[in-house]
């Protein structure tokens, strides 16, 4: 069993009288990429800021690699790196100078600076001033900076902001590689659910500061019982509905020529066989990518906080 490196235990935070984080608990294991989901104002950034010691922790405790953030701040911070909100750097200095400053504080060799800049693909423009960078380049620089000391826990708040598709793929590859090779635990918060689905091993969903649920993603062997959404596009929809009603006892939704159905993974082949048998002309069968989105809307009630 891999080790837990980041543990959040019964954490609460008040802004004035409002409780923005309410008795939140979850943990991140070594080598795991954990997605941190929630609608705007759910308390994601607040939680991240508490982990990084930017905000004080009102109740509960946060431990990083066994060190309590509250009691053993300096030790705990040695194992953590991250970007909060924006990858802010000193605009009047080049990326290299920025990273060198940080390397000095983190007690890292300067050679590491060039390695990390190469890793994020910023080596060509590393001598430019950061103020001249685009947001995507800043994100890359920020990532290089937070990886400089090879932390045990990497915290990324909206890291895909401003990145182009190549950049997003690069980021995903880098994170996956780091997680698997170096056992870095990554906590990513993002709004782009499709990205999260591709990137994360597991997601934690919070709403109004409360823990809602956690779900593993992508690992098919473990999810044999999990239901997956399918979109089946057919030529003759009436007939297909008839087949479903008579032979297959499943709840379906229809829209134009498409049937939406939730199934277990091993059931789909039987259904296709049944449809073909009754002369339903199937055009496409697609595994719906909207599972996370559906779940997200479910648990956050459509993301409308005020209801």
């Amino acid at each position, binding site marked *: 069993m891999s080790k837990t490196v980041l543990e959040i235990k019964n954490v609460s935070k008040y802004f004035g009288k409002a409780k923005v984080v309410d008795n939140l608990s979850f943990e991140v294991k070594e080598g795991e990429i954990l997605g941190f989901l929630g609608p705007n104002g759910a308390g994601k950034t607040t939680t991240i*800021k508490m982990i*990084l*010691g*930017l*905000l*004080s922790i009102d109740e509960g405790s946060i431990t990083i690699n066994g060190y309590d953030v509250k009691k053993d*701040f*300096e*030790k705990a*911070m*040695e194992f*953590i790196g*991250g970007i*909060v*909100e*924006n990858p*802010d*750097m*000193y*605009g*009047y*200095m080049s990326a290299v*100078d920025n990273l060198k*400053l*940080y390397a*000095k*504080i*983190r*007690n890292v060799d300067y050679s590491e600076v060039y390695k990390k800049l190469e890793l994020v693909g910023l080596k060509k423009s590393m001598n430019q001033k950061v103020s001249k960078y685009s947001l995507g380049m800043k994100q890359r620089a920020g990532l290089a*900076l937070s990886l400089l000391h090879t932390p045990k826990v990497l915290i990324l708040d909206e890291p895909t902001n401003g990145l182009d598709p190549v950049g997003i793929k690069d980021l995903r590859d880098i994170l996956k590689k780091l997680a698997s090779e170096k056992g870095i635990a990554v906590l990513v918060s993002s709004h782009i659910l499709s990205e999260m689905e591709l990137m994360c091993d597991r997601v934690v969903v919070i709403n109004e500061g409360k823990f809602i649920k956690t779900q593993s993603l992508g690992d098919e062997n473990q999810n044999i019982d999990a239901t997956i959404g399918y979109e089946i596009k057919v030529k003759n929809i009436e007939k297909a509905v008839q087949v479903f009603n008579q032979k297959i006892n499943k709840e379906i939704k229809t829209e134009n020529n498409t049937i939406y159905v939730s199934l277990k993974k091993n059931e789909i082949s039987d259904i296709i066989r049944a449809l073909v048998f009754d002369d339903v002309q199937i055009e496409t069968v697609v595994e719906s990518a909207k599972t996370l989105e559906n779940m997200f809307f479910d648990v956050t009630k459509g993301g409308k906080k005020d209801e």
Partner: protein
Amino acid sequence: MSKFNKLCSCEFKKIIKKKSTKVMFIILILSLFASAGIANLTKKMYSVAEEMTSPSNYKEDIQSMIDSLKFELNEGKDSLDEATKNEKQAQIDTKQFAIDNDVNIYNEFWKSEVIESDLYSSKLNIYNYKSLKAAEEEQKEQEKYDKIAELVKNDDFSGYIKYQKEELKKSLDANTIEQNEYDDELYILGLMEKYEIGKVYNPDEKWKSTTVKEIKTLKQNLRLGIDQISQKSLTEKTLEETKNNIIINEYRLEHNMEPYVSGMGDSVGSTRKVYDYMVGSISMMVLTVMMIIIAGGSISSEISKGTIKFWSFTPNKRWKILLSKLTVTTIFLIITTVILSLVGTLVGNIFFGASNAQDYIYASGGNVHTTNYIVFSILYNLTIAIDIFVFVVFAMMLSTVARNTAVSVGVSIAAYLGGSTIMQIVNMFVTADWIKFIPFNNLGLNERIFTSDMSYTSASMVKTMTGNIPVSFSLILLGVCVLIMLVTMFDSFRKRDIV
């Protein structure tokens, strides 16, 4: 290298790489040239003033005065009494004598003085004796008059001193003065003779006669046991000060070292000296503004730009980050002050010549010591830096508490520029004792620590204007203020969230 040192070196790099710092540095160097220009201007203003008080076309001037005196005498032939008539006649005669012998009575040198005082009184005596019909006395006085007139005609300076010494001896013999007063007066005459003070007219040496006069006053103070400026009797401390100032003044005369201000501000020192003080005020003011901008933005700009986030989750406690900022800003202040002093010396040497750079003179334990010019200018500017440090801490505290660069820089600069002016106005109206507890009244330590560059009279006036607060009291009070600000600053930075 320890972690804290690393933090500091990073902070230092951040300050140096900022464009605004570079711009301010250039302005700082340019302000040295501005100081040189203003020093020249000040000196010129003094010489213009000198020209106005002693015009070169003095003969016409005196002639018109004689004419008007004659007219008055003619008009008042019947109404004026004998004594007034004698006075006017004596004035006419002496002024005529000045014209005949080409003496500009507006200038300050011995002949003008002799004509204005000795000759005039002698002439007046002659006329008075004439009115009283005391022929014998009149004859005696006429002899005296001729003797003095002869000295003027022959341009005999040492003869004049000798004459004065004789007069002094006569007074002693006649018991009109005491022995110790006689000694003092004789000593002053000796000084005048030795350094030929007033022998020829030279506005650049005006300070010498002022300095001799000051020595005379100080000796009088010692004799009477009263400080004539503050009208207080001498304490042990002021007695020591008076003695020290006498030997400093003697040292100045001996080594021909002009003070920055002589007498009651009658003349300013060499252009170089004026320049040195301009550097102390103008360039150090620019430095203050520069440091306030650096300190006022140190925390708030990092918070507004978000860069503070990277620092705050490095393995350093927050107070260490703040302390490193404070330390670096202070070190930067000290280094810049030293650099400014050195570059200032260089600029001064280029504009006014290295030979004009004057060592600082001070006295302790009955002996005169000098401090090397460069060492002194560094020390002097560092004392000004104490004031700047107070404002740096103030700006940094505002920056931490208000988290707004504009507010912290604006308020600090306003306090720096406006504070002393407002205090001057307040001090004019309020004479209560508690006024010395106001921090603004305790700034300006440089003027109170390095006093012997000014004449004793000017220094005492400055002291009276600033409320006679002892330097040690000021240091303690400022220290307490800084401590309070530091506690506020650290407490606020440690406890508050970074949102």
